[in-house]
């Protein structure tokens, strides 16, 4: 079902959508953060007096925090450092002033006196000897995960050959066009923040833990979100804005400039990946992978990405003996943050490049080589989880057809590459939705904001419309704050349709049951109930008769805005075989979402320039609930993946400074770098979402760097092995330098 269009489009086109950056209030002050000028240092003193000397300026530092918070508030971690700064730009104090210019001036006036300490800049400086054959010896670890299964030594001992390769990936930033922005106010006991967030309830939970204020005293109200891509999933500016609001007694707006967004936003950091595969009788019989991931100043034990992404390094293939080890390295950079399908495009780049190189060495067609061991339903993952319905093999079969077609029509010299990818949607995180039925309309009351993908405004409405027989676009989505909305986990992990959509459908079922009860029908008859529009308002269609909704609501319901019915969805996570885990946490997959991508590239063999000329993305998305939105999501994901593959890179200096905090020097792809994208769906492999839907927010980016890498390998015969594959890196791979 399609054709409803996007209800947010007119609002956004008219300029009526209020984003975080648009927020304002009467008597509002502007906040500014005082950044640490160095990446690592001991605090000698922080003098706020010069800032406070400016008219109307309020300044707060570590010493003021306790006095601003309610008595008994137990903050988990200091909001401003008291002894040591651990990354450049770390906020050491904050100011608020009547104008933004004055706030910035005041922030510059704060005197920050630090004793410089040794800076741990990068993986390369901390581990100059790695990768070698041995595991890395690391002192500064945030996390370590290790899992193993099968007779690995035997597999390597009896191998016909072992292919050992190293891959490197660079940091990538989410680059939401709207930077982080929020507006905070404190009224008596109530601490309220309006903010551009993809997880209002997650933000409230973060604030409760950061500030030590009980959740009932915190209200998070989402604004329209100008892109998030993982960057707006945790609290960032909100705690500072709330403290400044308390200190100044005014609403306080805090908004990052774009250079600040680059420096302070939590982005993905560099990695080094080592993959070794033992091959016997043309099959991979053993694989050992090691991931060293720069996690910056992340707090130990807080890292989810390492154990989650490390599982993807084994690939979606059945391999009898495996070992995976991940090291989250602490450096003096801002904490690591999730970027669309956190770190899995990078893992897929490594493992799927490696897969092509194995096929090449064996002289086997790379797609056929994959299909010989790719998971299908019932297979077991390296971590011992049983694979659910999974359409990757079917997607690869279709990719093989596209390759044949393109080889026949493409100019000689072009390279064509295929990569498989998989993703597990976060449908294990639960949520609730509420339907509000009035005599004239049906609305979904819920706590998320539409972040641009359509997963909220279309994804959760479409199931309710279909359930109740309404036209596309007939159900409105309402955005409530955390004080009034039913709980939901957030818009992340491609879970929105699968989990919140399911909750909304359950609410639709409950509404049908309730309407049936009021009309005196139940069971199969109630399941046939449909809502129909009429000139007098909504009517309940019982098949043989109709009842106006107005007649079915009680006077109390009519007075309180309608009949409200809730639906909840708390899915079960899959399970892994914990006996295979030696250290740390690995995470089970919920859904098995597969995609095969095909890229065709033109490569300049002299200077290494790469142009993607054709692209196809074949996705197993379970049942596609809204094809137009699904296609748009895939096109956007591929465009973003082209950035990761060829262009985007945060460039960090040895002193922990981000050298390219601008949209000139951090290069997003433009339309000129994105070819037409052929999108196809594989259906018949249902997921955990409503009637078999699978999440689609993140999967489209997963295979892109790998597909392009394999196309370059096909054109040149040499691997590049490092992201992004800039022309200079390609020229180096060609030994032109």
């Amino acid at each position: 079902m399609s054709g409803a269009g996007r209800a947010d489009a007119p609002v956004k086109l008219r300029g009526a959508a209020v984003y975080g950056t648009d927020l304002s209030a009467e008597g509002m002050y502007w906040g500014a953060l005082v950044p640490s000028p160095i990446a690592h240092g001991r605090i000698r003193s922080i003098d706020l007096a010069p800032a406070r000397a400016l008219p109307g300026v309020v300044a707060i530092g570590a010493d003021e925090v306790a006095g601003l918070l309610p008595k008994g508030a137990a903050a988990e971690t200091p909001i401003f450092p008291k002894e040591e700064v651990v990354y450049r730009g770390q906020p050491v104090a904050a100011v608020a002033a009547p104008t933004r210019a004055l706030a910035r001036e005041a922030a510059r006036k704060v005197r920050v006196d630090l004793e410089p300490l040794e800076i741990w800049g990068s993986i390369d400086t901390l581990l100059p000897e790695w990768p070698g054959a041995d595991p890395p010896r690391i002192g500064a670890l945030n996390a370590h995960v290790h899992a193993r299964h099968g007779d690995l030594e035997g597999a390597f001992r009896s191998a016909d050959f072992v292919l050992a390769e190293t891959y490197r990936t660079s940091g990538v930033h989410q680059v939401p066009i709207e930077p982080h922005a929020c507006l905070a106010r404190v009224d008596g006991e109530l601490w309220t923040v309006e903010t551009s967030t993809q997880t209002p309830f997650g933000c409230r939970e973060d604030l409760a833990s950061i500030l030590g204020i009980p959740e009932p005293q915190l209200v998070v109200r989402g604004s329209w979100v100008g892109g998030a891509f993982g960057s707006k999933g945790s609290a960032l500016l909100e705690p500072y804005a709330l403290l400044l609001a308390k200190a100044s007694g005014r609403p306080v707006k805090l908004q990052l400039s774009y250079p600040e967004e680059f420096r302070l936003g939590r982005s993905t950091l560099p990695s080094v990946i080592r993959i070794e595969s033992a091959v016997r009788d043309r099959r991979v019989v053993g694989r050992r992978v090691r991931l060293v991931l720069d996690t910056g100043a992340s707090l130990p034990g807080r890292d989810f990405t390492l154990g989650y992404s490390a599982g993807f390094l084994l690939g979606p293939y059945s391999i009898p003996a495996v070992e995976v080890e991940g090291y989250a390295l602490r450096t003096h950079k801002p904490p690591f943050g999730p970027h669309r399908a956190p770190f899995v495009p990078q893992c897929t780049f490594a493992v799927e490049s490696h897969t092509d190189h194995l096929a090449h060495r064996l002289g086997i067609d790379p797609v056929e080589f994959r299909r010989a061991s790719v998971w299908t339903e019932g297979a077991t993952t390296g971590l011992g989880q049983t694979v659910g319905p999974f359409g990757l093999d079917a997607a690869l079969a279709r990719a093989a057809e596209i390759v044949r077609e393109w080889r026949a029509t493409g100019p000689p010299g072009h390279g064509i590459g295929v990569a498989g990818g998989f993703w597990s949607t976060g449908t294990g995180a639960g949520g609730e939705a509420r339907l509000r039925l009035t005599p004239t309309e049906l609305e979904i009351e819920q706590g998320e904001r539409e972040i641009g993908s359509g997963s909220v405004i279309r994804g959760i409405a479409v199931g309710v419309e279909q359930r109740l027989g309404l036209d596309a676009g007939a159900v409105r989505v309402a955005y409530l704050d955390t004080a009034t909305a039913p709980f939901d986990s957030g818009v992340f992990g491609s879970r929105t349709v699968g989990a919140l959509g399911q909750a909304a459908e359950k609410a639709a079922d409950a509404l049908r049951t309730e309407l049936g009860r009021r009309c005196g029908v139940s069971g199969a008859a109630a399941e046939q109930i449909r809502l129909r529009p009429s000139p007098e308002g909504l009517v309940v269609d019982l098949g043989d008769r109709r009842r106006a909704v107005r007649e079915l609501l009680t006077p109390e319901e009519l007075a309180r805005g309608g009949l409200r019915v809730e639906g909840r969805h708390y899915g079960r996570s899959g399970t892994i075989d914990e006996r295979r885990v030696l250290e740390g946490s690995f995470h089970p997959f919920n859904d098995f979402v597969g995609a095969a991508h095909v890229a065709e590239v033109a490569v300049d063999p002299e200077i290494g320039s790469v142009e993607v000329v054709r692209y196809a993305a074949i996705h197993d998305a379970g049942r596609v609930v809204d094809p137009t939105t699904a296609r748009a999501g895939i096109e956007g994901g591929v465009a973003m993946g082209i950035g990761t593959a060829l262009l985007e890179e945060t460039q960090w200096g040895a002193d922990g400074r981000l050298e390219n905090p601008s949209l000139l020097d951090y290069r997003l792809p433009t339309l000129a770098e994105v070819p037409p994208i052929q999108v196809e769906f594989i259906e018949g492999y249902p997921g955990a979402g409503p009637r078999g839907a699978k999440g689609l927010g993140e999967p489209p980016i997963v295979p892109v760097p790998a597909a392009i890498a394999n196309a370059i390998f096909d054109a040149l015969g040499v691997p590049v092995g490092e992201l992004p594959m800039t022309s200079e890196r390609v020229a180096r791979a060609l030994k032109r330098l």
Partner: protein
Amino acid sequence: MSSFDLVAPASEEEAVAWLARAPTGETAVLAGGTDLLNDLEEQRIAPRHLLSLRRLPWNRWSWTGPALTIGSTTPLVDLEYDPKIRSEFPGLIGAIEAVGSVALRARATLGGNLGRSGSASDLIPMLLALDASAEIVGPSGRRSVPVDALVVASRRPALDPGELIRSVLLPEPRASAYLWQRIRPAQDVSHVGVAAAFSPGDGRWRIALGGVPPRAIRIHPGASELPGRPSKAALEAAARRAAERLPLATDLRATGEYRRLVAHALVIRAVEAAGAMREGAP
């Protein structure tokens, strides 16, 4: 952005007179503003006065026989879409198309680009290869100066106090080509730019390279080294020598050695591309 006074005179005399009186070091000159406004926004500069050239009648061009005089505030996009300029100065069009985006080129100007003298300018190498000169106007009247002598280093054109760039003169149409290399093809800064133009007067190629500080460099392969129809070996040797002239500069965009590799390849391709145009000419 700090506050400033904006002055926008309507005549050349007024502009020159105003600039002559303006306090030194506190005035910035605004043409298209596509580069200057970034400096203002990022507070790298905080001038008290901004002299806008946008109302001056310098936003047009004229032909005098084969010579083309381009007013310094002509938006690049106007040149880009003129059929005669497209056919007579293909290399200039190539260089213009390399600048920013279409939207930016609707504001950006040739004079502004010269006045800013960015080391990564795509236009300056082409102007050098075309033997362009600039007409300067100031308190002591007008003078003409070769672009080669005007461009010194980034943000530092060789202008005397109170002088403005009035127009740019291209002496004659030339078979020419401009090629560049960047990390992102669209809307990026070239780490190497190569301009090649054939001068019918002396039968020699002019080659200039850009992309590395302090400024674009003009290379003069002698007639014996690079004649109008060079042999493959002669062109290869000239490209190698040209690339070696490029300072070995490494920055965030590229290493020095990669720049030389690219310069070498692009000199050959630019001469071949422009040479093919010559062959194709009636």
